[in-house]
């Protein structure tokens, strides 16, 4: 797709010169570090670890600390993408280059996915650290990261969409944070709704339940299909929104 690769490269580069991005990433790593420290401290007192409830499982699946940061990191990573180009006017040369809109949207989106993945990379050190002092089930580690990536990819797609729809970066960040929290809350419905279809749906879309499953190495393809929907649908809307600007 014409335009995807140069836009991807520029976007990654632009990201690393944005101070707010560094703040968000540093905050993210600090929270994850603290999170890990608390888990290790908790498990340090226990001698007998069951296979289902080791530190790795807890890290990925049993605490809110893992994805609460996602609620603010994803909107901060994506808010710039389109809102800033519209504010500064650089969208004009961009959209008058002989490239496809889908290339623009995907290039920008994949850039934030890469940055998001890179942000998680240092947490692999925790896993290595654990493996030096005990058994680590790498299958569980892999499925844990897969879930983190799959859920994040959806949140980033939502953020990309709101950045194209909102007039300012701030509005983009706020609306995507609200959408992500909304999605998360539907998942919490699993614990609130009475037995029935509502509860089934809630359980199906629940990021919490997904992390719980994947942190035990249970990879449910239906969950991945849902995650893919949360990626594809907002990106599709983004392409349509960018094309619609011409008609304003």
């Amino acid at each position: 797709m014409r335009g995807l690769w140069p836009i991807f490269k520029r976007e990654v580069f632009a990201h690393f010169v944005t101070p707010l991005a560094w703040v968000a990433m540093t905050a993210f790593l600090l929270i994850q570090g603290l999170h890990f420290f608390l888990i290790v401290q908790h498990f340090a007192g226990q001698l007998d670890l069951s296979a289902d409830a080791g530190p790795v499982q807890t890290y990925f699946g049993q605490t809110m600390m893992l994805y609460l940061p996602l609620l603010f990191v994803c909107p901060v990573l994506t808010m710039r993408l389109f809102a800033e180009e519209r504010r500064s006017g650089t969208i004009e040369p961009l959209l008058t280059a002989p490239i496809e809109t889908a290339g623009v949207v995907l290039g920008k989106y994949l850039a934030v996915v890469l940055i998001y993945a890179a942000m998680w990379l240092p947490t692999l050190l925790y896993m290595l650290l654990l493996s030096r002092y005990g058994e680590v089930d790498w299958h569980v580690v892999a499925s844990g990261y897969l879930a983190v990536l799959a859920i994040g990819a959806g949140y980033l797609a939502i953020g990309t969409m709101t950045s194209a729809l909102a007039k300012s970066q701030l509005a983009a960040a706020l609306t995507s944070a609200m959408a992500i929290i909304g999605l998360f809350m539907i998942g919490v419905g699993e614990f609130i709704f009475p037995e029935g279809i509502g509860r089934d749906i809630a359980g199906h879309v629940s990021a919490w339940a997904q992390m719980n499953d994947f942190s035990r190495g249970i990879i449910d393809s239906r969950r991945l299909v849902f995650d893919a929907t949360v990626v594809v649908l907002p990106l599709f809307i983004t392409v349509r929104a960018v094309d619609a600007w011409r008609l304003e």
Partner: protein
Amino acid sequence: MIEVEHLSKSYRGIEAVSNLSFRVERGQVVGFLGPNGAGKSTTLRILAGFLGASSGRVRIAGFDIVDERLQALRQIGYMPETSPLYPEMKVREYLAFRAELKGVARTKRRVEIARCLELARVSEMAGVPIGHLSKGYRQRVGLADALLNSPPLLILDEPTAGLDPNQIREVRALIATLAEEHTVLVSTHILSEVEASCSRAVVIAKGRLVAVGSIDEIRGRGRPELTLVLRGTEALVRATLSGLDGIASATVEVHGDTLRAKAILTAEDDAALGEATERIVRALAQADVGVREVRTTTATLEEVFATLTRDDMNSATTDEAAP
């Protein structure tokens, strides 16, 4: 190269361009003229595929800007009005990014970027972050970008806005050299710019076409003026002039012991002007009026522009448009 048919564009109900039609042929350098708010940028944005028209159609080198968007865009090097650029990128990095977007082959990129940097006279700023550049240099980076990949058509929206007089002269000279290889449509509200570098002009006001043609044709839209210094009685001169064909209006003033008459003629070309002058002078001589001086002046492009675009427009706008 450009075909615009019945183009209209409204912004939330307010019409910025209405029923505009014109053509630009391959190889022409056309000035796109109009006072502030005339709809120049709006039209150019539609031509460059950034905005969609409310109605009408645009073809670039035969490709429809909506239905054959990518083919049409490949023909165009577009420089938007304020040259919006990414401040964090260095000039060379930015042009490398743009060259890649425009599909310049990897192996040719270095040479192509150097060529455009040179043409737009920004080579010495190649390593400077765009955010640190002055407005004039940013305009030139925008120009270098438009030149990348040598598109057959250049659409430049006020390329000299914000430049100092030396830079303006350089850019005009550049446009003149570009004319050899490119078709150029350049918007401006500075008339001397059009006279200096364009062979033709399209003039719009309030979103409507008011004139199109060669610079001479447009200048010809203004009425030529005959100034005479005469000796005789005011009444006799008035009577003589009022009996002649080819005079739209005339004024006579007394200056000491001579008279000064100004006649606005209806002549539309040089031959008619000469013929009318001859007739007037002969009639005055026959009436025994002494003719001491005869001067013909054709309207300047500025005067024509002012007349063409003044209609129901406040004078402040026109003054600004025709300095």
